[in-house]
């Protein structure tokens, strides 16, 4: 039995505090911020949970994100990107903050695809909104643009390359 475990989970701008008060078989008793929940929860398929609360039946699907602490959770109507925050992730976050936000400098594609064209080269000055890479996936081409003015410091891929989703493609100085 796991009792009195506390965790923070972030969803969008919300930082929710969850406290597991008790768990006995399928029955869990959890405090989410100040709200108490008594649920019957059980995993029915891999990544699929059936939940019964006060007689209402919910189906929740859950996929692990980029790390063990990130989840995409689908309820019937909504989809949530969640991140579980513990001591380790707080430390990482603080360190990243002090190092400055890397992501604003990196152009990446949310989906896998193929690099069609890179109309810039390392050292080029680019202005905000200027296309820096064109990716094709499923017969559709998408232009990715510079998020700000800057100089191209690195191009991580070549024309014709097959890329995974979310990998860095072009980095600005």
């Amino acid at each position, binding site marked *: 039995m796991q009792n009195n475990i506390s965790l923070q*989970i972030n969803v969008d701008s*919300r930082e929710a505090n969850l406290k597991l008060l008790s768990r*006995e078989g399928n029955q869990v008793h959890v405090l989410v911020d100040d709200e108490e929940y008594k649920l019957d929860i059980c995993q029915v398929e*891999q990544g699929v949970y059936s*939940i019964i609360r006060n007689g209402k039946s919910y189906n929740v699907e859950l*996929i692990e994100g980029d790390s063990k602490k990130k989840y995409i959770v689908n309820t019937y109507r*909504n989809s949530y990107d969640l991140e579980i925050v513990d001591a380790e992730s707080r430390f990482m976050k603080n360190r990243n903050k002090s190092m400055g936000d890397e992501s604003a400098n990196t152009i990446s594609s949310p989906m*896998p695809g193929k690099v069609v064209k890179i109309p810039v080269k390392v050292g080029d000055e680019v202005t905000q909104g200027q296309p820096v890479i064109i990716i094709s996936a499923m017969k559709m081409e998408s232009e990715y643009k510079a998020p700000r003015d800057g100089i191209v410091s690195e191009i991580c891929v070549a024309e014709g390359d097959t890329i995974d989703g979310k990998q860095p493609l072009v980095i600005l100085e």
Partner: protein
Amino acid sequence: MINKILIANRGEIAVRVMRSCREMGIRSVAVYSEADRKSMHVRYADEAYFIGPSPSNESYLVIDKIIDAAKKSGAQAIHPGYGFLSENAAFSQRCKDEGIIFIGPSPEVISVMGDKISARQRMMASGVPVVPGTKDNITSDEMALEVVMKVGLPVMVKASAGGGGKGMRLVKKEADIVQAVKAAKSEAMASFGDDAVYVEKYIESPHHIEFQVLGDSHGNVIHLCERECSVQRRHQKVVEESPSPLMTPELRKEMGEKAVAAAAAVNYTGAGTIEFLVDNDHNFYFLEMNTRLQVEHPITERVVGIDLVKEQIRIARGEKLNHKQEDIVQSGHAIECRIYAEDPSNNFMPSPGLIKHITEPLGLGVRTDGYVYEGYEIPIYYDPMISKLIVHGNTREEAIKRMKRALYEYKITGVKTSIKFLERIMEADDFVNGKYDTHFIENNEEFLMEMDTCDETCEDIALITALVDYLDKMGKSETTVPAHSTSSEYWKNFGRRKAILRW
């Protein structure tokens, strides 16, 4: 005698064709590219041949490779599905030259109907109405004014080399025509390096309505009534239904006769589709002919009760049509939704990836034509369509409710899909009332894109689920005995069963 057919396609349509082959006792031969070794059509087929790298221009579009596989397998016929080589006259010709039956029309018919100008001329000669105007380049102000006089306002100026709305100008007043032609020409030149433009009547509130036709090699042609395909996004069909809510028995008869005339004009053999633009006053104009099976053919199959692939094969065998025009009646109402791997909330960006979990809708009145399965990775090289959901009801109202039920049951995780967007379409007043045209999606964009809201409970339940999953995962990786072992026999058994399932 055809006892083996090569299906020169992939995805849902390849599987769909193979199903009918199997029911006819015909062996099916799959071809596959590198990315498709694990695709369902390879698993479903009786035989399978590798035809090269993943990009379709190195595999599915290479005529030599397809012909080679057909010869190796001894297939007597090739079914091209839709897309790829299905409307390629050279491929049809090559099959003919090689003595292989092409399940589709002759190369000549594909050529004539494949070219917009020759198709338009042929239709005009056969008395099928076309959009008034000209396809000739406007070379003078007088010529532009002449067309306007002939077809009446409003008109649309379009670039001959055009596409994507570039070089297009809507003209509502005669005074604007000269300036519009000038602007369109300049834009066309800038966009396409070609300043040819033409002037056509502008159809307000256009409906995209198409008629399914069947022609045999004995000169018989019939139509199988209409499909309403006006729910489109960027000229891509999203939802189709049959019958069309706009249709009347009189209009159906008239359009059907013109569709048959259009097909007969080219001695059409096989299954084909005549696409029309229809306005709210029931004026209709020939748009184009698709000389192949359509994606949305299942709604016709359901309301008229005919397996179109079987008919295609029978026609290819030289048989006479099984049905007479007077036998064809629509029974009930069918709707198809196309399920795409795409992210509606991110500008409908394609979303290839690994299918982690899938539950397909089942039960009364529901047909699913798909090809993905749990653990399948949707490749980046091809169309993002995952499957088609087709429902039937006794009435349009029942069909809509059934579609909502089916969409509710359809669960796919791992890739983003258009399922929620389709649910919104089923709930949009204009759709429910059957009062929509090709502007439907833009007119209803706000409603369709609205994020579904949920009370906080819903979000909290998502959080709790993640908590439970995370604790179990952490517990598992630290100890062999699940951290949550309790006295409950059910919970213990669950762990044990999952271990069995995961070997």
